[in-house]
Each structure stands twice: as C-alpha cells, then as structure tokens.
C-alpha cells in the first residue's frame, strides 16, 4: 500500500505511456508521410524510392507523386535586371557626386543637369525613382528596350556608372506639382487612376504608381512627367513596340486604353498630384 502511494511509482506509467503515445503517433506520421506514401506514389510516377523520400522530406525539389517538369522552352525574360540583394547594394552605395560628373558629360544635353528635360519627347528625370532609372538604363544596355539615342549611350556605361547617375537624378529636387494651375481632371480619368476598370480588367494606376503603394520596385514616378512622353510610351506598350515590362503588365493595360484615356492620363500625370 505504502509502495503504491509513493508519487514516483504512481507517476511512472503516466510518463511512459504518454511518451509512447505521443511518439507513436509521430512515428506513424513519419512512416506514412515520409516512407510508405512517397514510395508508393513514386512507383506509379516512375520515381525511384530514394528520390521520392528526399522529395517528401523537402531535401529535393518536386513532388514524389509527379515527375519533375522539365521546361524545354525556357521563357526569354523581358528584362535582364534582377533585384538581387547585390543589385540593391550597388544602388544603396551609389555616389551622386560621380553621377553628377557623368550627367554633365553625357545626359545633360537632353535630360538637363537638374533632370528637367529640354524637349517634350525626353522624360524628366528629376526626383525619379533610382531603381526605375537603373532598370531602364540597364534595359537599354542589354537591348530589352531600344531607342535610337539611348541604346548606344547606355552601352557605354557600366553598372556602377548607371547606379551613380540614377542616384544623382533621384536626389534632385522632389517633384512638386502645383495643383493650383490645374482644372479638375475628367471623372473617367480619376476613376482609372483610383479604381481602374474592373469590366476591362484594368487595375488602378495608383495601385503601383502612387508613392508607397506597393508596386514593383522598378515602378517609375509619373507625377510631373512630360505629357508627350507618357502618351508615346503608352502607345508603344499598346502596340508591343516597347516590351521591357515584367509580366507584360503595362502592355496588357495599355492595349485596353482608348486614345482619349491615354490622353487624359498623360495630362493627369503631367500635372502631377500629391
């Protein structure tokens, strides 16, 4: 009797059986999930047992139930720019001073020393996102985007120079649109910017182009851009002449816009917003 009331004697079976039960369930899971099921699935998919088990564990890529798809026609990327941490590091460490020198040497005749372009066909670069400038220059360099002047200019620049120029222009005075000079934009333009058009599967422009909205890294700032430049780019996207937009996002959107909408949007962004 005294023996039974000793706590550790009473508790012993609890410890043992609880451990056996909990571990037994896990082992059952391991047996089924990592051994039996993958091996059986692998057999019907023509995968050897070892590979199937490795796939089940996640050591090898793919499912034990399906042969790994081999893509015989790898897609051609529309841009060679990949936002790796190395690239972001280059951008973060770019020197606007060096960029300024390069700008005076190369860019100034069209885009201006402060990034204010000299002609409607050239975009303003002042206060533009550095990542956007970096991507476009790189795309010119690699041929993803072409332009009679820019292609050769960009080919003469190296990665570091591109980053420096981007940092320099990005650091120029922030765009400061002056809404006082504007009339209110037409309703259909505001709707496109704020809501898009779900009937035509057009997302709102602001979903990417509003600062901080969470669009892709390379999304350019459109506020205070040249109206003629925006019209030209949207039309080139629509026709497929320009094709360095990842996933064809802008080509899909621009192809659905009417001329009046392209015009309205270009006017809207020329004036800018805050």
């Amino acid at each position, binding site marked *: 009797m005294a023996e039974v009331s000793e*706590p550790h004697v*009473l*508790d012993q079976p*609890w*410890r043992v059986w*609880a*451990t056996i039960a*909990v*571990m037994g*369930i*896990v082992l*059952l*899971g*391991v047996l*089924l*999930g*990592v051994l039996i*099921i*993958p091996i059986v699935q692998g057999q019907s998919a023509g995968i050897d047992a070892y590979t199937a*088990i490795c*796939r*089940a*564990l*996640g*050591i090898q890529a793919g*499912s*034990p*139930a399906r042969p790994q798809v081999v893509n015989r026609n790898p897609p051609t990327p529309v841009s060679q720019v990949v*936002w*790796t*941490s190395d690239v*972001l*590091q280059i951008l*973060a460490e770019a020197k606007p001073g060096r960029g300024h020198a390069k700008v005076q040497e190369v860019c100034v005749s069209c885009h201006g020393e402060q990034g204010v372009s000299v002609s409607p066909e050239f975009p303003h670069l002042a206060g533009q996102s550095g990542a956007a400038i970096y991507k476009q220059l790189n795309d010119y360099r690699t041929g993803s985007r072409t332009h009679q002047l820019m292609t050769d200019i960009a080919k003469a620049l190296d990665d570091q120079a591109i980053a420096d120029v981007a940092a320099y222009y990005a650091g120029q005075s922030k765009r400061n649109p002056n809404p006082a000079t504007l009339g209110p934009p037409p309703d259909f333009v505001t709707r496109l910017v704020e*809501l898009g058009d*779900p*009937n035509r599967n057009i997302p709102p422009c602001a979903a990417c182009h509003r*600062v*901080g909205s*969470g669009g892709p*890294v390379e999304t350019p700032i459109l506020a205070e851009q040249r109206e003629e430049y925006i019209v030209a780019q949207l039309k080139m996207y629509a026709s497929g002449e320009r094709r360095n937009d990842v996933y064809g996002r802008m080509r899909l959107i621009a192809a659905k816009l009417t001329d009046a909408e392209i015009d309205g949007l270009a006017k809207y962004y020329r004036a800018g917003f805050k």
Partner: protein
Amino acid sequence: MSVTAHGVAMAYVLTTFFIMGFGYFVAVTALNRPLPGVPWAWAGFVSSIVGVVMVLITVGSGQASVLFTFYPPLTASPWFYIGLVLVVGGSWIWCILMLSAMTAWKSENPGRPVPLAMFATVSNAVMWLWTTAGVAVELVYQVIPAAFGWTQTIDVGLARTLFSWTLHAIVYFWLIPAYIAFYTMVPRAAGGRLYSDTMGRLTFILFLVYSLPVGMHHLMMDPEHGNGTKFIQVLLTAFVSVPTLLTIFTITASLEIAGRLRGGKGLFGWIGTLPWERPMVLATGLAFVMLGFGGFGGLINMGYGMNAMVHNTAWVTAHFHLIFGGSVVIMYFAIAYEIWPRLTGREHASLAPLRLQLWLWFFGMMVMTLPWHWLGLQGQWRRVANFNYADPIIAGWGPLVILSFGGGLVLLLSALLFIRNLAVLHRSVIPAVGHPLYALAVHPPQRVPAALNGFGLWNVLVLVLMLLAYGYPIAQFVITPSPSAIVHRVQ
C-alpha cells in the same frame, strides 16, 4: 488600414488583454491566495498599453497597412512591430506570473491537485511562451531590421514558416479561456457538477502538445516544404480535434447531470430543464452550435485535398470568424458577465438584456459567416477589397455579401449592447450575492499523477515534437538559402 486595425485589435489586443486579466482573476480566486509579483503584473500591463498606443498611431497614420499577419516582404513602420513586441512582452510577464503563482501554491499544498481552472490557465501560459517564439524570431531577426532599412531583402519562405509556428497555437491561446469556462464555470452555472476533472486536465494538456507542431497546415499550398513534412503536421493536426471532442462529451455529460438534477427525464428531456435563463448556460449552448459548424469547417481546412479547394478563399476568413468571433468571443462575454459582479460587488439588475446581447451575437455571427462560407466554396478569394459584381460570373455573390454584411451590423449592435450592459452594472445598486464560481467534479480529485498536475513531461514532449516537425523545415533555409524577396515598405 481598417482591416489591419480590425485584425490587430481583435486578434492581438482584445485577446491578450482579456486573457491576461482573466488569468490574474483565476490565479487569485482559484488558488485563493494573493497574486505574486503584483508590481510586475502592472509593469506588463503598462508595457502592453504602450505597445497598443504605438500600434494605434502607426496603423491610424497609414504607416502599417500590412494586416495583422504582416505578409513580408511588405513592411510597415518599425514602431508598429515594436509596439506588438511590447504587447507580447507584457504577456510574457503574465506567463511567468501564472507559472510562479502555480509553483508557489504547489509548494504550499504538496501533493494536492492544482485546481483545474488554474491548471488550464497555466497550460495556456506555457503554450503562449512556446508559440510566441516563432513570431518573435520572425519580427526580431527578419521584419524589424527590414522595416528600419538595415536589410533590403527578406526570406519570405522562412518568415512564413516562422509565422506558421505561431499561427495555429495562437488560436488555441484565444480559445482556452472559453474552454476554462466550459469546464470550471458552466457545470456550476447549470446547477450540476463537472463530469470528469481528469478529462479536463487531459484536454488542456492535449492542447498544449498538439496545437504547436501543426502550424504548417497553414502552408499546405506553399512550395518551400516537402509533402512528407506537411503530411506529418496534418496527421498531428488531426489530433487537435481530440481535446475538442473530449470537451463536447464532458461538458454535455456535465450539463446532462445538471438537467437530470433539475428533474429532466428521458433521452433529451434534461436539455429543456437546464437553466437557459442564465447567461453562462445560454452562451455555452450557443457556443456549441457555432463550434459544431465551425469545427466541421475546420476539419475540412485540415485535409490536404479539401484545403486545396478552399485555400485563400473567403471560406477561411468565415471559418475563423465563426470559431473565434463566434464560439470563443461569446464565452468571453459570458465570462465577463460572470466575473464583473465579483469584481465590482454589484449584481446585474436584470438578465434579460444580457441574454438579448448573447442571442444577437449568435444570430449576427451565423448570418454573417454562413453565407461567407458559401461564397468561399464558390471561389470568392480573400484579401481582396473590391469585386465587380456587375460581372455576370460573380453577380450571384452580391446578395450573399449583403446578407453577410447585415449579420455584421447585428454584431455591431450586440457589441454596443455588451458595453451598455456592463455600464448599467456599474450603476447597479444591488449588491453581488457571491455564489461560488468554480464547479466541483463528480469525483473531486484527491491526488493526481504529477503528469496531470504540472507541465514538465509535456514540455519535453513538445520540444521533441517541435524539433521533429519544424527542425528541418527551418534548418533548410540556413543550409540552402532560398532567393529572398525585396522588402516593400508600406508608407
């Protein structure tokens, strides 16, 4: 912004504060001794309040629209995350105080079983310490450095895996107070006894053991983990349903005892004789109905194949609103109605508005979530703000969404009535009667094995399970780092 505010307020703020407060109440009333370390408790409370203020400011100023589950590589203002860390930090103090209160009681009462309410509260505290480790590591090592701009990329697979560590057990952290009420308050409120004290202890232990190594069932469609690992966690997930099934059985049996003591006869006659006019009993009945629907929904989410059908649809949001917002929160209301008279020394003048509030909550939640589930089955995806109901393919969803919205309005009305009921209680002139709160078991335990009176053994088992379930899935991100995503700062 509003969805972030709603998620953070309901999932982190309401729950953490309620559970801390309820835990302190249980520690004092169930153990019948003063709380150790009261200044620390206040320090934890202040830390949590400061955290909430930081979260409010960042969310309110639009600096933190990342939803309560964060979704890296989105990053908000760092102060949003630091605010949440302060809230969790405050709750860790609570956990330690719960553990030390139980330890002190045990040393004063050697060999005696810890009262079930306290045992369950401590099981929740232990589980909370385990579960918050995942999100704490995610925030401190990944998200906060990115939010400050110290790092430019985030390994999203690792972040999702760490969050899944927290994500499932956190819902049991919210749920356990409801279960504490089921086991320790409902049988007394119904006028009966708890059918089995041991069953209660087993339930809370099973929650501790099986709520943790199962979070990967939230990642079943994620590519970064092997099928075998997912299978193991799905199997373990199946065992999380065991404590709920035990509870349904035990509490129904306890209510049957009460009903028969009150003269109920026959197979179902005891149901009618239960004192449904009492808020605690009524809330339990309504919670069980919602738990029934929600529980079956949960079993669907748990299965790999069925989950594939409902993954990322409105079904999932409907499910957790029904279970948490429905079954759990209605018990929070009932607990509040039960313990506020004891805290304030005043009695409810009339129970009718309390019952009305509970019924409205039940009705609103059912009307809101059932059509919502149905929308999910039809493929309405979640985390989308606007749908074009003019599109003929989804036009049929419109009326269901409106119905669901109507349910939401009823819930709002009920929430306002809840605040009104407590405000009325504060002006009540009727002194509280002071009934005993906690139920006795049919066979009150004289001595229980150490395994059912503490958590040492179970912590070891949880550690082993977590190593098996999460060891390689987390280690793989260190062994072969995957491509990271660029941090996206939400301003």
